[in-house]
């Protein structure tokens, strides 16, 4: 279904009311052709570009073969990591609105909501952290294009800032959001009377899954070593590590469904058509996918987990840096078959 202005408005209204905050990512539901999504995203990208003058357009656009820009993303805030592209703070309200429309088109409703909640969380940091070299805030997020928006040629939409790096690569009808970094600090906050947990559903699903395993499965899934950071976080493109944990070929149908639901929390950041296509790949190789855990099993505890298979790699790592690790989360989503869809883009 192509979202009309009215449905988008309704969606935003629901989001504003917070009604979606406890909603899990939707199951596969669309029969629309993937190309339709690409066309919509290209149109939204071009609508944003049309709001820019030539100087701003030069800042936001990078050549399709600019490998340095393609890999220039991080979880770190402004001040210690230099992003290129256009910063939201430097855009006019109509230009910001065009970026927002682009995100609403490219992302799923849940991905869009989470993006805003991560940015809100950074605004919380701005008001609570001591001023210094690190610059926080919801306007410290950047948009860039690697390659010109096209319905046929490869290009990547980059949107990111502190605790957020979305890299949506589009090659014709094929769209992938890998690699992407999604984090949260604070992981729980209350704003305008509403409690927010940008990664709350994913966190809860992970504990449901580990506790749904039987003793033998859990014995294989849980490692004694502590993982205090991501192994394949930013800067680790193109790497493959030995999988660990329990293989999902030993899972019951119910356990497999829980695993799929958990994976969908990352895969499903992007719009429904791309999510559905990727989830079909994930399901096809689910038996070869591993689930690994490190840390306590009690819900709400700081625990690391990793999901690794032919079609997906996800890591979730609470960060214990002088405080409650459950309040500072880092996660990464990668495609072992090729981040940025390199298997099709040719490198």
């Amino acid at each position: 279904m192509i979202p009309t202005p009215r449905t988008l408005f309704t969606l935003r209204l629901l989001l504003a009311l917070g009604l979606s905050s406890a909603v899990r990512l939707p199951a596969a539901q669309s029969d629309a052709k993937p190309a339709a999504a690409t066309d919509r995203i290209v149109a939204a990208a071009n609508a944003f570009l049309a709001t820019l003058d030539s100087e701003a357009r030069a800042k936001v656009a990078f050549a399709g073969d600019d490998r340095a820009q393609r890999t220039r993303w991080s979880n770190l805030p402004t001040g210690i990591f230099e992003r290129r592209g256009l910063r939201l703070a430097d855009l006019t309200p109509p230009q910001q609105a065009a970026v927002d429309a682009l995100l609403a088109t490219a992302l799923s409703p849940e991905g869009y909501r989470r993006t805003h909640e991560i940015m809100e969380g950074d605004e919380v940091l701005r008001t609570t952290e001591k001023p210094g070299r690190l610059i926080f805030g919801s306007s410290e997020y950047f948009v860039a294009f690697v390659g010109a928006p096209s319905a046929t040629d490869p290009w990547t939409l980059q949107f990111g800032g502190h605790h957020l790096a979305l890299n949506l690569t589009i090659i014709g009808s094929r769209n992938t959001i890998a690699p992407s970094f999604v984090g949260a600090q604070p992981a729980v906050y209350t704003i305008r009377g509403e409690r927010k947990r940008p990664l709350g559903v994913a966190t809860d699903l992970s504990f449901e899954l580990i506790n749904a395993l039987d003793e033998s499965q859990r014995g294989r899934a849980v490692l004694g070593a502590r993982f205090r950071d991501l192994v394949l976080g930013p800067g680790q493109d193109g790497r493959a590590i030995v999988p660990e944990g329990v293989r999902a070929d030993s899972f019951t149908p119910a356990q497999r469904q829980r695993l799929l639901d958990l994976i969908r929390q990352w895969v499903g950041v992007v719009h429904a058509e791309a999510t559905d296509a990727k989830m079909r790949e994930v399901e096809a190789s689910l038996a070869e996918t591993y689930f690994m855990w490190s840390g306590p099993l009690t819900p709400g505890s700081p625990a690391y987990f990793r999901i690794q298979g032919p079609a997906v790699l996800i890591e979730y790592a609470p960060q214990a840096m002088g405080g409650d690790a459950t309040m500072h989360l880092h996660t990464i989503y990668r495609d072992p078959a090729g981040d940025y869809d390199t298997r099709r883009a040719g490198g």
Partner: protein
Amino acid sequence: MSRLVVLCRRFGRAQFAGLLLGFTPAAHAHRLDELLQRSFIAVEPARISIEITLTPGVGRADEFVASLDPNHDGKISSSEGETFAATVGGQLALFIDGQRLALTVGDVSVPDLDAVRTGVGDLQIQFTAALPDSPRGARALRFSNNYLPAGSVYLATAFAPAGPNIRIGPLRRDEAQQSLAFDFTIQARPTPAPTRPPSSAALRP
């Protein structure tokens, strides 16, 4: 009005803090007084490669810079980098089938010192060790890292093998990940050096 516009305008106001209720300040935004040490081990047909990446937090930067730049000229010469790498290498131990192997320092990638001082500088060192011949099928690898254990955070893992003739068994670590051990096999057929790690699809620890 879009959510981004609303977000940017709303948070432009000073009273944002007043909108927050029940918020407990979080942990530090970044690793401050710890040294992150990532170790990746690759099993290749004739050698073992170890890649160590050191990322000191802001609170460890001065100590780290002093070790890297002993003449305090603000630049890291190749000899200073090699000396530092040798110091790190002296605290590493690699055993194959119980035999300790000599490590050779390879590439050393030194970060900008300003990046180190802000807690985002990655110093990467490559080590290699020739793999002694053995008639045994299964080989046992044991690695340990004792470089600056006080205040360090360790991550240690193995790269997926570059070809189907190398198989790596389950990884075993201590709790802190200062040590890593696993068994592996290499079939007789030679495997070309990898240009890019393969998918983990065919692996089974």
